């Protein structure tokens, strides 16, 4: 067989493997998907350190953007997982106030124990997520439209039921010290406890995406859902589970807000729709799916929060914050595309070196 000898790898081609060092090279660091968001965060941090002065860098300043980052981050992480899997979830914008109202109506208006209200809120989050997921896989309508529909439906349902049950769009909630301590209080008078929940969720989502086999499934479904299904991945169940995750996390933020502020409003939380998408996209997740990282989502969340809060520490009018965020979003996406393309160029250097 003539092919037998030709197929043996040549000595020269094998050599670079042995000599390759164990440490990641500068090139491989630059190829990390988070690289764009690292640069973006450093840039905005330096910018606001210069213009925001000492107040921005003080403990209070840090708490200001960390608190925003915590609430946004808890939602951005599961929304990011969904986006990596190729789906969007806009309904979080209604899920947050729906959950706030649920806990406030059950435990505030009807005086049920707080645990009942909390569990009902979380249960509602799971149900909404399940419905979202089921609609997306059954109707095959793009998830943007499906969750836009559930966004409005849930907002209407929350408003209608709140008026019927309480006659008001705002309900007070008094919760005990334990519920406060766990879900809605300030530590040291400045830092929200949700910060710790955020850290916990970072760990969980990090485990799912980077360490567990489900991370591989999520990347594969986002990359090519047909091939993923053919490879034996239960894509439908995975999609529903991811939507339930984002519903649950949005519900968590909603109920912790109600407990923190001792009241719930029907119309709070719409800002989470776009803010979560911005955080995730700035963090290097590909909007069409198949690519992204937890570190990136965290960096994107922090970047967004620094801009959003940092503006108050500068002499500028706060109205400019959205302009900065808009420009930042564009820059981040362009930069992320560049770094992604760099990751795709498979070093021809090893080849050329052995040839020379």
């Amino acid at each position: 067989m003539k092919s037998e000898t030709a197929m043996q790898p040549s000595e020269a081609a094998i050599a670079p493997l042995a000599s390759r060092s164990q440490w990641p090279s500068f090139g491989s660091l630059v190829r990390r998907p988070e690289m764009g968001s690292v640069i973006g965060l450093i840039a905005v941090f330096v910018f606001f350190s210069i213009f925001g002065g000492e107040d921005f860098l003080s403990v209070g300043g840090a708490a200001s953007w960390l608190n925003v980052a915590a609430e946004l981050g808890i939602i951005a992480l599961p929304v990011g997982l969904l986006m990596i899997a190729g789906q969007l979830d806009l309904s979080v914008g209604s899920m947050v106030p729906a959950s706030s109202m649920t806990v406030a109506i059950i435990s505030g208006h009807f005086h049920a124990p707080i645990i009942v209200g909390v569990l009902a809120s979380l249960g509602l989050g799971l149900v909404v997520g399940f419905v979202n997921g089921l609609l997306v896989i059954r109707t095959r309508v793009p998830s943007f439209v499906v969750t836009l529909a559930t966004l409005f439906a849930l907002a209407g349902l929350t408003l209608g039921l709140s008026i019927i049950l309480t006659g008001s769009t705002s309900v007070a909630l008094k919760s005990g010290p334990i519920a406060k301590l766990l879900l809605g209080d300030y530590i040291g008078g400045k830092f929200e406890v949700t910060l710790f929940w955020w850290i916990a969720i970072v760990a969980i989502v990090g485990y799912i995406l980077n360490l567990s086999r489900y991370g591989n499934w999520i990347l594969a479904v986002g990359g090519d859902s047909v091939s993923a299904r053919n490879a034996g991945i239960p894509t439908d169940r995975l999609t529903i589970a991811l939507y339930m995750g984002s519903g649950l996390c949005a519900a968590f933020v909603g109920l912790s807000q109600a407990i923190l502020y001792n009241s719930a409003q029907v119309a709070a939380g719409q800002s989470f729709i776009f803010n979560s998408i911005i955080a995730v996209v700035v963090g290097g997740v590909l909007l069409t799916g198949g690519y992204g990282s937890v570190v990136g989502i965290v960096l994107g969340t922090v970047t967004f929060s620094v801009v959003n809060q940092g503006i108050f520490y500068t002499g500028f009018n706060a109205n400019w914050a959205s302009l900065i965020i808009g420009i930042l979003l564009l820059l981040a996406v362009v930069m992320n595309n560049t770094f992604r393309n760099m990751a795709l160029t498979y070093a021809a250097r090893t080849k050329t070196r052995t040839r020379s």
Partner: protein
Amino acid sequence: MTIPLLKLTGINKSFGPIDVLRDISLDVNRGEVLCLLGDNGAGKSTLIKILSGVHKATSGVMEMDGKPVSFDSPRDASDHGIATVHQFGGTFQLMSIGRSFFVGAEPTKRWGPLVIFDRKRANEIAVREMRQLGITRIDDGNRLVGGLSGGERQALAIARAVHFGASVLILDEPTAALGVKEAAHVLRIVLQARQKGIAVIFITHNVVHALTVGDHFAVPIRGSKAADFRKGEKSREEITDLMAGGEQMAELEAEIESYMTKHEGHPPRVGG
């Protein structure tokens, strides 16, 4: 007489009123390369979809090892050992080589109380399997699939199929989008798979590529099997004529037929 690994008898497939495949019968043996040579629209892709479980045949019998089989899904077909590699190979462009190699079959290990994806092992196996197919440029399983060349992606997909124990390997135009050198490499890999005793179904319209690796050839034209022959029975010119001429003849016949039905049975007048 050995029993063919995969045997199709009288396969028909129609989508509504349109017959896409008519009475296709084929034998595929272990350690043999069957080349399906056909122009676009000859029914090659429908045949692949039936073999890989995407479509079900309207009628006809499919047997593996002499036992009738029927695939409900692509997953079902791959459980029977049928692996399909499409023209562009790995489809997960932005996944690492190690990750995409093990999609749906990830190796895991325990890490304290957690079960985690064994990325190191996945990368090692993926790189090793690709090296065995002569892809020596790849030394890092963390690199993205999208950074591979077309031939390397084919090799990755074939390596994956071989690793997971495919007994029938369907290659859908693996060389069509490749340069000359890369195509030659893929052809070598096809021979390597054949040597392992895998039955290879090689779909192409490149007669030279087919003749290089094929043991057995079938030419579908307009959904029917126009020819079925073994290596050495026909020359390259004969096959080319068969593919091109046969297609044109069928086209012409169809034209005349439709003309006649429209014009109450009169054949078209020449120069009229």
